[in-house]
């Protein structure tokens, strides 16, 4: 209050000077005087702000500070973030992972990378170019039709099953909620959870016109029945869970066939971008908390992919 009064008295003469060309009515002047202009000293930069980084920083979804008890980097729980984490490791590019959220990203999506030399921000769609320039990624023809088609398979079928299990089954309450909503206020938490589930539902309904109706109108208790496999009804309609998991199985089957007995996809001599993209999903689908779900069971049944997953883990140093 003391400073306010001081400012108050200082602003008096300034206003009387301006009276010479524009008279200010007394009540307005009084009102304005109760809101004196205060200039605060400049704030320090936030503690988490990047400065003088020697390593590129990769901003990802991760738990806590992104390190485990031994100070080793944790895997992100987001398939897309894990893909880039793994790809940077496979390209022998050292980096530092920074826990972050969508709100901090210029493009609105994680991950993104901040280059050490000029603090340039590289969104995920430009990351490939950047890694090619700075790292030592394996040779791969990503324009190959087969690889493009298989990547589309990963980004649709595997992603749908992932979204469905994490957001629209009870796993959401036991796992996803804790991962993606970091607030202690239970009301805000409830609201955020609702938003997340709604977004996932909309996302699935967009790509699956057949299920749009049941996905958008069904109450949660309906979509929650994930463990009981619902047989196609006599009327010919399938439940969302049934269709999504059937697609997942056929997609994983296709990936197993393509992998064959090779160590890495497409017979490469070291794992590359395609391996990282598949690894992002396959690794996370077997994570703690998902093993008991249908998703975890399906992915655990793919022997070839599990063998390959162990290989990628070893190569990436996880």
């Amino acid at each position: 209050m003391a400073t306010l009064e001081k400012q108050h008295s200082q602003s008096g003469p300034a206003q009387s000077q301006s009276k010479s060309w524009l008279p200010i009515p007394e009540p307005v002047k009084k009102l304005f005087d109760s809101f004196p202009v205060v200039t605060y000293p400049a704030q320090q930069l936030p503690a988490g702000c990047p400065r003088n980084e020697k390593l590129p920083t990769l901003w990802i979804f991760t738990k806590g500070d992104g390190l485990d008890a031994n100070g080793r980097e944790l895997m992100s729980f987001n398939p897309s973030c894990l893909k880039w984490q793994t790809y940077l490791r496979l390209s022998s590019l050292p980096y530092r992972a920074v826990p972050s959220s969508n709100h901090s990203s210029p493009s609105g999506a994680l991950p993104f990378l901040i280059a050490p030399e000029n603090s340039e921000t590289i969104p995920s769609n430009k990351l490939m170019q950047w890694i090619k320039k700075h790292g030592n990624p394996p040779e791969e023809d990503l324009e190959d039709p087969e690889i493009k088609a298989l990547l589309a398979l990963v980004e649709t079928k595997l992603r749908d099953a992932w979204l469905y299990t994490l957001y629209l089954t009870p796993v959401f309450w036991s796992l996803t909620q804790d991962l993606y909503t970091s607030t202690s206020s239970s009301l805000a938490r409830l609201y955020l959870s609702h938003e997340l589930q709604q977004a996932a539902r909309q996302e699935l309904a967009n790509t699956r016109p057949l299920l749009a109706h049941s996905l958008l109108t069904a109450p949660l208790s309906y979509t929650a029945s994930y463990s009981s496999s619902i047989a196609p009804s006599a009327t010919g309609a399938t439940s969302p869970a049934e269709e999504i998991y059937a697609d997942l199985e056929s997609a994983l089957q296709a990936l197993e066939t393509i992998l064959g007995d090779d160590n890495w996809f497409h017979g490469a001599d070291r794992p590359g971008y395609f391996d990282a993209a598949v690894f992002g999903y396959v690794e996370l689908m077997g994570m703690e908390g998902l093993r008991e779900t249908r998703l975890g069971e399906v992915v655990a049944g793919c022997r070839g992919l599990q063998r390959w997953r162990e290989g990628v883990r070893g190569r990436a140093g996880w």
Partner: protein
Amino acid sequence: MLELHIWGPGFGLPSIDPQCLAAIAYMILTVPKEDWKIVPSSNPQLAPSQSLPALRTSSTLWSCGLPNIISHLRQLYPSSDLDSFLPPRDAALNTAFTSYITSRGQELLDLSLYVSHKNFSSVTRPVFSSLLGWPVCYYHPLSARNAARERVRHLGFSSSIDITKKAEDVMAPLGETPGERAAREAADPKPRNNALGELAVGIKLSAMMNDFLGPLEKQLGEHRSLLGGQTASVDCVMLGYLALMLVPEMPKAWAKEGLDRHPNLKAWTEEFIGRVFADLPMGEVERGDVAWLGGVVYRNFIDNLPVIGKKEKVKNEEDPMLDASRKRAEALQRKEWWKSVLFITGGVVGMITYIAWSGIIRIQTGGEEGGEEEEGEEGEAEGEEVEEIEVDDDEHDE
């Protein structure tokens, strides 16, 4: 007798939907002609999953959606199934290319047939109107368009991709806040940017077409099928999407132009269309929706009655006509109303609290203590009244 229920016909093709076209092509190649017929009902409400294509095997048995239809036909006609005899690697690629074509092709068709206002209003909408009965023809095309917009939102094409659009296209969504309106208006290209904006959009669209078709062209090469061997289900799917890019005569013909740049794909599509869509076992158009339409009219009428309307609301869950977007808009409107009430109440309370706390009124009045209090109260009361009038105004606006 099998009945394949589809959307269509239109655009000079037997169906206006890529999945329906694929289903037709698949059945032509696998099922003897005398065993099935096409029912161009254009009425998804007939099928239990409320979507087309749907295959009716008996009066009560349906399989909905292309994958289910294919697996059902595999049981009925195991010897002519297209995918059973593929080598394992080709079977895997069959799955992969199917999802590639379905996901990427759908986005491009959405943009070409629905999101582009010129194409939609001069071609797609009239086709829909000719297919649908009253009153579905009025709002189904729009809800189809909104669904398409929703699907391509992530590409940055949320509004219209035509720059020269008419005013009625910029219909404000229900329950829009001023902030959202400002954002929408800012996102819409202004008329003065026409030439530049249209050029940029054109470049982006043709790049997307090349990005989609390039790998397919490379994969197809000179073969007769995408996987190089015999025709598989992925060829039928590809036919559905490419035919809808090639055949419809659109004012904004970037999809067709994109296909023109890929001669192998274009020749393959033309040849395949000639082979499978030439002689179709077309059945009677099923309009079995008179009762259903009557129900809709009745339901709408009941909904608008103030007293009974509320009781009937529960039943609306099953009402096929009250589509999701309308429900959402209503919920949004209610939410907006409560929000504005909350804000205004909060504002009024805050203002009064501030006035009372800061003592502004006391400074102005001065004088005797008794009079001061009275005047202060009057001032407050007046303030409240004014604010309440504002509340009323706001409600009228909405």
